[in-house]
């Protein structure tokens, strides 16, 4: 059966996205989805953006980072303080602040990444964990060097310009960006490094450059997501960017299946809704059990499916059509697997 042509696939995908957008928008404006769940949906999409960043770093390039929330937080604070002090609520400045959030996170990733990315897996994990703690301590004491950041009491005052429209379409853009990166020579270089770093190096790939690129890109996406977060939640607090948050991103990427964007996206959204749903289901009386149940679900899920839900597989519409003479041949590389 002939595959849909590339153009047809793209149009279908865009149409489907618009349909989803329109549907949710309708449900929100008509208050069928109430403000509480609107916020949960936005949270889910923001988490998706951040998790896709970690997916590039860990899922596709194999670099074990336990400090992802630090970059998310750096982006949040950078974008927040920029827009709060200079933005005056204008939309162009909002976008600029998001880019600044991404840039600050990316720059920090470059600085810390260059030295530590040569560490092996477990050791890289704790180095990034340590970095995350250092950043958190910095946030707790931020009022000492920049009072507007608020220190341990947190920062408020960022214009709350991010609504569903912004969050949705930015998430969409991030998904496209990540997908185009993965299904290109860059993505192949990343997975080669993940699969066998030494062989990749001997076969001519500058593995240091690839790892740093993936790390910077992934952390910049976290910073972008953080910037969006700052504009959707009126109050930024250092405790939102601690190791537990890094772990949230990690478990989404792992449970979703390493090397699968689809897995990351679906798991990120599902996990946020699951946690909120728990709050709902448990009600007032059993709300204390929320943490226990969350932990139990996590342990059971990983034991039942250690390779993750979508390990290495992608949804069809994300896979690009093979190019050139591969058209019509069986397989054809990036298609058929997430690598």
């Amino acid at each position, binding site marked *: 059966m002939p595959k849909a042509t590339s153009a047809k696939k793209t149009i279908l995908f865009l149409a489907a996205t618009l349909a989803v957008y329109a549907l949710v928008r309708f449900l929100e404006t008509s208050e069928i989805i109430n403000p509480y769940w609107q916020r949960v949906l936005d949270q889910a999409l923001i988490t998706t953006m951040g998790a896709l960043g970690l997916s590039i770093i860990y899922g596709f390039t194999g670099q*074990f980072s336990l400090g992802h929330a630090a970059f998310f937080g750096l982006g949040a604070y950078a974008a927040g303080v920029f827009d709060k002090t200079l933005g005056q609520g204008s939309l162009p400045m909002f976008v600029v602040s998001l880019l600044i959030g991404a840039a600050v996170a990316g720059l920090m990733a470059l600085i810390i990444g260059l*030295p*530590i990315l*040569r*560490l*092996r897996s*477990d*050791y890289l*994990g*704790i*180095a990034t*964990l*340590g*970095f995350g*703690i*250092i950043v958190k*301590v*910095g946030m*707790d*004491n931020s009022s000492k060097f920049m009072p507007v950041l608020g220190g341990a009491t947190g920062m408020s005052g960022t214009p709350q310009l991010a609504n569903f429209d912004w969050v949705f379409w930015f998430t969409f853009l991030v998904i496209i960006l990540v997908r185009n990166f993965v299904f290109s020579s860059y993505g192949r270089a990343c997975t080669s490094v993940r699969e066998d770093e*030494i062989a990749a190096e*001997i076969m001519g790939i500058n593995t240091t450059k690839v790892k740093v690129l993936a790390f910077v890109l992934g952390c910049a996406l976290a910073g972008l997501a953080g910037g969006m977060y700052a504009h959707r939640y009126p109050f930024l607090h250092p405790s939102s960017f601690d*190791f537990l948050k890094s*772990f949230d991103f*990690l*478990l989404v990427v*792992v*449970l979703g299946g*390493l090397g699968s964007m689809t897995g990351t996206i679906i798991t990120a959204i599902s996990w946020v809704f699951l946690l909120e749903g728990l709050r709902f289901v448990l009600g007032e009386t059993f709300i*204390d*059990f*929320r*943490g*226990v149940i*969350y*932990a*139990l679900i*996590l*342990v059971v899920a*990983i*034991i039942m499916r*250690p*390779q993750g839900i979508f390990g290495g597989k992608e949804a069809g519409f994300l896979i690009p059509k093979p190019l050139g003479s591969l058209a019509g041949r069986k397989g054809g590389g990036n298609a058929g697997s997430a690598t």
Partner: protein
Amino acid sequence: MEHVVDQIINGLQLGFMYALIALGYTMVYGVVKLINFAHGDVFMVGAFVGYFGFSQWGLSFPVAVLTAMVVCAILGVVIERIAYRPLRYAPKIAALISALGVSLFLEYFSSLKFVFGPNYRVVQRPFEEVQWHLGSLIVTNIQVMVFVTVLIMLLILQFLIYRTKVGMAMRTVSVDHNAARLMGVNVDNTISMTFAIGSAFAAAGGVLYAIAYPQIHPFMGIMPGLKAFTAAVLGGIGIIPGAVLGAIIMGQVETMTSAFLSSQARDAIAFAILILVLLIRPTGILGRTEPDKV
């Protein structure tokens, strides 16, 4: 000058307590190559059990410590059996996620009102703190207790690992599971034993910690766990003397920073030092690099 020496002693006390926890991390990593993130929470459970022992169940202090050790040894074995063994030959990251899940479970479960409850509890020491003045130095009986306990446990561990069959089994399993099996070692039991010993040590550390810094709460294990884990890596993960060395260094760094620089920054500086050490010696101070055979 006196202040410095006092702080050195304080640092040693902290470092020795970290050592008790760090040993568990390093031993478990040795046999199953897993970073047991739940270990810090076993430490917490030990602290609580010990506390209940000497403050509510009328046990004498040493018996309370032993009870905590036994309870946590069992807890460690149970955790390994349920949450780690099914993943032993799965991708390593899966076991790590499971460990994090267990850690969260212990914390949240302990916070439930009918278990330990979420609040901080102040620990009434079951004995008086005694201070001895050696010249201008102050040494407390608690410090002495920590030093002596840890030293004894280290000696026991040393004997166990190098002079007993169990210890040899542990060392063999650290190298290669299949080879160990073929040599007649019961790998499952050896691993369980490792978890039991490591958890018991952590429990002892927990009770001593509760006595020394007399406040306990369900989330008290997170930071000491992370720091002890850092210490184990610092010294060379999987290497027992490394865990002790790393722990002593961490204890000193933390105490000195807190006393002379800024108590706010002490965590940041401790981890910054970790990162620096790793950059110079990527496998830890006593760690061996295993070059990839091409």
